[in-house]
């Protein structure tokens, strides 16, 4: 069990760290970094699904019989792109927030809006 599954569990641990970082940190940039960790961990999970013992990269070559499954690789190529796309939009918004609020700390920004409400 452990021999065959420990990979999953370490990967899940990475997911946990990422997810925790996303939610526990108030800093927007840090949230995005955490999001990356979370997603990359999920990518690992997919890739590990495609692996075959004694297999080799799914590039057909003479004399090799066992190949890892290409489908997870394909999916993750797409997923990586989705990830970086999200990061870039997030970064752009974060920058705008900094310009509008003078901070990238979620709590401070919220506080400033609340203060604004108060003055109105």
């Amino acid at each position, binding site marked *: 069990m452990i021999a*065959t599954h420990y990979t*999953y569990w370490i990967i899940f641990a990475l997911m946990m760290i990422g997810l925790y970082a996303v939610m526990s940190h108030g800093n927007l*940039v840090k949230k995005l970094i955490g999001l990356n960790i979370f997603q*990359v961990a999920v990518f690992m999970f997919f890739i590990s699904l495609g692996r075959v013992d004694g297999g080799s990269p799914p*590039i*057909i070559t003479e004399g090799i019989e066992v*190949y890892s499954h290409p*489908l997870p690789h394909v999916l993750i190529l797409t997923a990586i792109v989705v990830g*970086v796309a999200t990061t870039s939009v997030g970064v752009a918004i974060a920058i705008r927030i900094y310009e509008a609020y003078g901070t990238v700390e979620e709590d401070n920004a919220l506080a400033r809006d609340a203060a604004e409400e108060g003055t109105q």
Partner: protein
Amino acid sequence: MSTFDLAEAVLLGILIVTAVAITRARSLFVAAMLGGLFSLVTASLFVLLDAVDVALTEAAVGAGISTVLFITALALTNSREATTPRRRVIPAGLVAVLATAGLVYASFDLPGVGDPDSPVQTHPITDTYLRESQEDLHVPNTVTGVLASYRGYDTLGEVVVIFTAGIGVLLLMLGPRRPADEVKDRAYLQTEYRVLRVVSKTLMPFILLFALYVLLHGEYSPGGGFQAGVIFGAGFILYTLMFGLAAVQRVLPMRTLVVLVAVGVLIYAGVGVATMALGGGFLDYNEFNPGNPSGGQVAGILLIEVGVGVTVAAVMVAMFYSLVRRGVRR
């Protein structure tokens, strides 16, 4: 314990440590750089897991693009993180632990890693992708085959995602800029690092050449449109870092980039529309050469890979431009 397991264990160990370090780091520059390292290690893990294409991409994107994005963001905002308020910790931890618990619970019924009899390996499509594809496509790199043909529609979606991100960033960054007095010094953009400059200048052509190779050779070896696009973009980004925005924009003005972004998507979608026009389904490359389907497939794959490359490269550079512009003193 085989060398594979050993190597894997070591890499995973490093990853855990890095991840923890990232969350602990108060300096966001450190966090960003560690993030780069994290991706790099992940890439090597992917190689270990036979996912060479993914490794290539993860290295280019995770260690390259993302890191650059974060660094730029930090340059435009501030680079230290306030301490996390206590009240956030408990719920966050709770959710994270719950989710992980659920996953671990589920994992007990998962087939072991590398199990050749797992449903994934025994499902008929595995054979389709690994064996039949050789008759249908003649594309040794099955990843490219699946990506560009069997699941070409997914890849179209992937391009659209990047396109969307590009649009989004441009929309957000086009707007009125901050008042000049707030602008920090952007010295790092134009500092005189002679050695670096010379090196990067000499590297530039090779980078672009390599990108081209990755693009065209994607059917036989790791790589393809996306990786090529990223490398291509990375080249220009490196150049910008060394010589400043103005220099690069003389070569590749923003407007051109924006056009290229759309053109790439149109190439890809155009291929699909063309196959429709030829009477086949959307993205059914066989239509290009009914006599010799696999020939049509190769042609189609090459075309869409070009489309992907163009859009990805253009978006990467355009994003970087608009981010950097945001800061440049005017």
